[in-house]
Structures are given as C-alpha cells and as structure tokens.
C-alpha cells in the first residue's frame, strides 16, 4: 500500500527554549503533518511552536562513527574552565 510519509515533530515548550524532538507521525503533506502534530503531541499545552520535518530529509550520524566523531573531545579537558587552577583569593574569574 501507499503509506503516508513519516515526519519528525519538534516542539518549543516555552518561549526562550529551543525546539526539541517530540516524536514522529505519518501525514500526506506538511500542513496535515502540522495539524496532526498539534493533536498528537500538544494536547496539554506542551508547546508554543511546532516544526515538522520529513524524516527522509534528516541526515543523521551513524552509531558506528561515534568513536571518530566524539572521542577527540574527550581528550581535551582544557576546553573546560575547571581545567585551570586559580587561587581562591582571586575573585570573579
């Protein structure tokens, strides 16, 4: 059968926060996806804004590349402020 395409739904919970992935749904087009997202994912004031994106349009990193992609950051603790020793007497640093 001719299944409706899959859409990913992102919701901004409150003004000032970023959109977050809420889930997915099937819909024939963007407008219907938006309407359905409103019914499926915001029945209890969960959002002030919705994005829908066709799942097929998302490019995702692959779990097998997790090492080369993310491990280099682990060996660079000097990117964090706690790496540096500063005497207690020195304030506002």
């Amino acid at each position, binding site marked *: 059968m001719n299944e409706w395409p899959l859409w990913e739904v992102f919701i901004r919970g409150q003004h000032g926060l970023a959109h977050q992935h809420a889930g997915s749904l099937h819909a*024939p*087009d963007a407008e219907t996806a938006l309407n359905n997202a409103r019914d499926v994912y915001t029945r209890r004031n969960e959002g002030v804004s919705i994005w829908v994106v066709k799942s097929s349009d998302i490019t995702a990193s692959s779990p097998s590349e997790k090492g080369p992609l993310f491990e280099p950051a682990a060996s660079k603790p000097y990117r964090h402020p706690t790496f540096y020793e500063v005497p207690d007497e020195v304030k506002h640093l």
Partner: protein
Amino acid sequence: MTPDEIFQDRIDRGIKIEPKDYMPEGYRKTLIRQISQHAHSEIVGQLPEGNWITRAPSLRRKAILLAKVQDEAGHGLYLYSAAETLGVSRDQMIADLHSGKAKYSSIFNYPTLTWADIGAIGWLVDGAAIINQIALCRCSYGPYARAMVRICKEESFHQRQGYEILLTLCRGTKEQKAMAQDALNRWWWPSLMMFGPHDSESPHAEQSTKWKIKIVSNDGLRQKFVDQTVPQGEYLGLTFPDPKLKWNAVRGHYDFGEIDWQEFKNVIQGNGPCNRDRLRARIEAHEQGAWVREAAMAYAKKHENKAAA
C-alpha cells in the same frame, strides 16, 4: 567480545539502545511484537469506551471521556512510531492486527454494559496498565521507554476520572451503588489477567528480563496492583468478587484466589465476548477510511507537482 556480548554489556550497564544501534534479531523481533501489541491495545481500547461517549450522563463526563479516548488514540500513535524505528512499517502492523496474527490486550474483548463500566475501566484497567507501564519506563529500548514516560504522565488522569465516576455512583442511590458493585464484579478478574500468565508459565520471561524489556515479573506486578487497589475499593464500600482475598500480615501483601486461566486462554484465542466485534470495527474503520487516505495523498502529490513546475 562478540557484537551480542557488547550489546548485553551495554544493557547491563544501563545504557539505552537506540534505533540504529546493533541489536540481536531476537531483541528486535520481541520488541516489535511487544510494542505493536501494546499499540494495538491502545487503539482497540478506544472501542469499549467510545461506546459510551454519546450516552455519558453529563456534559462534563462527556468532555472527559472524549479527552480520554483521544489520549488512547495518541498513545497508540506514540507506540506505533516507536515500533517503526525497529524497521516494521505501520501498514504491516495494522495488517497483522486485522489478520489476527498480532494480539491486543484481552481485556478489551469484554463489553461495557453500563455507565459504571466506564468507571471500572478507568480505575482498574488503566490502573493495571499504569503499573505495567511505570515499570516499562526503565526498559532498555530508548524509543519505547520515552513513549512510556509520556504515556504514564497522561494516563494518571484516566485512572482518577474512573475512580471518581465510581465514587459518585457509590455515594448515590442504592441502584447506583449496585451498578458500581456489578461493574467491579465483572472487571476485577479480567483486570488481574492483564498482567499475563504466571512467571513459571511465561515462555519468553527469562530472555526478556535479561534484555531489560521486561523489568518486573508478571506476578510481581499483579501483586502490586492488588495491594494498592483493594484499599481503594474498600473506601468505595464495595466488595471484591474473591472469597480468598485477605490481608496477609506475615507476607505484608494481600493473598488472593487463582485466576480462571481457561477463560484467559479462551479470550486470547478469540472466543471472548467481543473479539469478533472489536476486530470487525477496526477493519471497517480502516477500509472505510481508505479513500480519505488516498485522496489526501493524491492532493499532496498534486500540490508537490505544482510547486515543482
């Protein structure tokens, strides 16, 4: 370590499994069966309650029941989406439900004869579902666990509205209280059956526990349900249809009688009071909606072509 050993180690360390991660075929298959069965239960579960929307006794009750049934639809959709991340299509799952290959919770094969049944379903059936679902929030598969968290948050109102319906009936006339008692009499045992067979009879239990797809045993969950529900029923002034139900101070739990497993098997095998009705209603809705799905798709394609031109 083999891929299966790495996988098991990850689960043992409490790291969630996500859709694109390696997983053994058995894990994938078990989850597809369990999540789709759960989704089907939410969808078929709309039918017994939908039966009372037009006859709810007040506008307040009607609005509540509509919201609840709409939630069940939403819960079915969250769960279908979670199952789809494992590589099964929505169409396939629906086809399996309609052909009888996939099951749904046997509780929805019982009829809703009176308004008190709507109260009993909320209190007992949703109560039992919540106990099961709270445990599943910790399951090893990320999309399933996340759907469960969402569902648990929403489902608490379902149970409370059901209890409130029964409380109102129990504080009403003698006839109304008798109606509540009758509903408890009919729904109590099927609710206990919702937790499934005894652990000793449960064929996949050990592997599912190892994979953290099953978190607490069937009997453990059932005991928890009995322990928390009996005092609630006593508060209503109702009696449970089980002469063996009794507080056991030594165990610190209620003892209760044996479930009629023959009835359980019968209903699962399709011979409950409403099995044929429920499936017929689902298939009819699906078939009668086919032209809407096709028309919406044709409309979307037409506009896509226009935009491209």
